[in-house]
């Protein structure tokens, strides 16, 4: 297993609750400086994995390293990690500022300015209001502010956009992108795959506690995974065009006057040449990446 070259590195990590296996022999790495989307349906083991990485629960078997240190020695790395797990959790009868002060003190930080943290997450105006009066979006933002208390190298965020309206989601997206620009590694789980697709450059996908994919976005959504969409100059040539692709072993479908050729994104130039050789001229030829959602369902179905 790689030791220090990844922000997170796990090998064969498993967690059982009684006889039920929640996480099954996970092996993946998360590179430093990446925004890693941790994707999977409810109950797939995302939160359990995050809890194990933060040493909130014990592993059943396997190994894990966070920022180069084994997860069995959380004292060695947790002072460089910020986290929001299972949603924000604060003392309801205290204000945002008071809550942040308490957690900063517990983290051994005396000079932390709660107001600057609140300003970072856009909560400066409501810092003195009691936590129980906050909207869901404000609670999520306070959760992120608390995760930033230690000015961490690695941020672990579990569903930070849960329950937010579109404006709130956009704000959190901008916040996370901004945090990543300062060199932090961000490990983020969400059900909103379209959101992760926009902000993440690395993905770890789970299903029923097992790993489906771990790697860069391009490997999942780009390259050979792109579809080719072609439109001939004359509609009558559509079937012939489909034949040209089919003869070369490519999967095709005709939708709305366009020929879709699956996973042929890298063959655009060649396909254009083949069409010309048959004297079919193209009005348009574009590539289309599958969405993360499409890819996720496709991979889920194949498993």
């Amino acid at each position: 297993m790689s030791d220090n070259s990844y922000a997170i590195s796990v090998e064969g990590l498993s967690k059982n609750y009684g006889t039920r296996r929640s996480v099954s022999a996970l092996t993946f790495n998360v590179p430093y400086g990446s925004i890693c989307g941790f994707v999977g349906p409810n109950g797939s083991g995302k939160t359990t994995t995050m809890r194990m990485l933060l040493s909130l629960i014990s592993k059943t078997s396997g190994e894990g390293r966070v920022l180069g240190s084994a997860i069995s020695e959380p004292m060695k790395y947790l002072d460089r990690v910020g986290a929001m797990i299972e949603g924000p959790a604060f003392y309801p009868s205290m204000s945002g500022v008071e809550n942040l002060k308490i957690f900063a003190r517990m983290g051994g930080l005396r000079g932390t300015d709660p107001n600057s943290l609140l300003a970072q997450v856009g909560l400066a105006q409501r810092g003195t209001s009691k936590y129980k009066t906050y909207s869901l979006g404000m609670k999520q933002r306070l959760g992120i502010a608390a995760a930033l208390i230690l000015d961490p190298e690695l941020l672990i965020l579990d569903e930070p956009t849960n329950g937010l309206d579109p404006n709130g989601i956009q704000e959190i997206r901008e916040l996370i992108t901004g945090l990543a620009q300062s060199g932090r590694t961000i490990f983020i789980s969400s059900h909103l795959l379209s959101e992760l697709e926009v902000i993440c450059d690395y993905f770890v996908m789970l299903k029923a506690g097992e790993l489906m994919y771990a790697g860069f976005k391009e490997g999942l959504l780009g390259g050979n995974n792109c579809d080719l969409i072609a439109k001939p100059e004359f509609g009558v040539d559509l079937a012939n065009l489909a034949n040209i692709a089919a003869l070369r072993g490519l999967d095709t479908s005709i939708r709305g006057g366009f020929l879709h050729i699956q996973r042929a994104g890298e063959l655009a130039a060649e396909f254009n040449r083949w069409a010309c050789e048959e004297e079919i001229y193209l009005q348009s030829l574009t590539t289309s990446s599958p969405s993360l959602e499409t890819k996720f369902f496709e991979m889920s179905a194949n498993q």
Partner: protein
Amino acid sequence: MSKSAFDATRGELLKFRRLSFLLSVFGSLGVLTLLIVGFAWSRAEKHSSSMNLTTGFDMALFFLGILTLCICASYTAQEYTYGTLRNVLVLTPSRQAFLIGKLSALSALIFFLTLYTFLVSSVVSLFMSGRHGVNLIPSLEGKALLTTLAHCLNGFLGTMALGIFGIALGLITRSPIIAISLGLLWSLIIESALGGALPRIGRWLPTANFESLAQSGATGFTYIHCLGLSAFYLLLISLPALYLFKQRDVSQ
């Protein structure tokens, strides 16, 4: 104390620095102490030799003990119900440091609550004693003052014992309501019923023993006996609580 335990203590102390909390706790304690001590003196006979500076304090300690048990159980268990324990343990990874911090902060609170109860009861006693022709001034002089202060310290120790009982219940049940209910059920009902049914064992029961400790001993029980027995009971409940706290996963 390690740095992380010291930091945890400072963080815990911040939770008490709220006007609403301080007013409700010190306000209710002050009013009840005033009523209890005032009532005790109002029932006393003129020139009664049984009344002294700490009589009212001893009676008020019972309410202080119950209040302490509730505060400690609630402050410990709510870390689970609010989910804040996972935030805390990410910042203070040592569970030991977290517990030391909580215990230290609650000890400080209990110390000030005991001192406050002592001061309120003393002021009320001094005020009421004049009307009953009892002179309490000698209790504040020389060796008598030391005895009075030692009594106050024992009041703190007995109350602390109930506080630790509350913390242990909070850790075991992970629910403030269940922890407080169990604590009150045991202290107020089960022990009273057992003590009523079996008077010989009444003083051996935990809460009654903590009370005896707070009163610097009881009839037939020396102070050392109370101290030893209290330590035994605290160990008995703390060990499983500590084991569970160390082993349990932190999740909702």
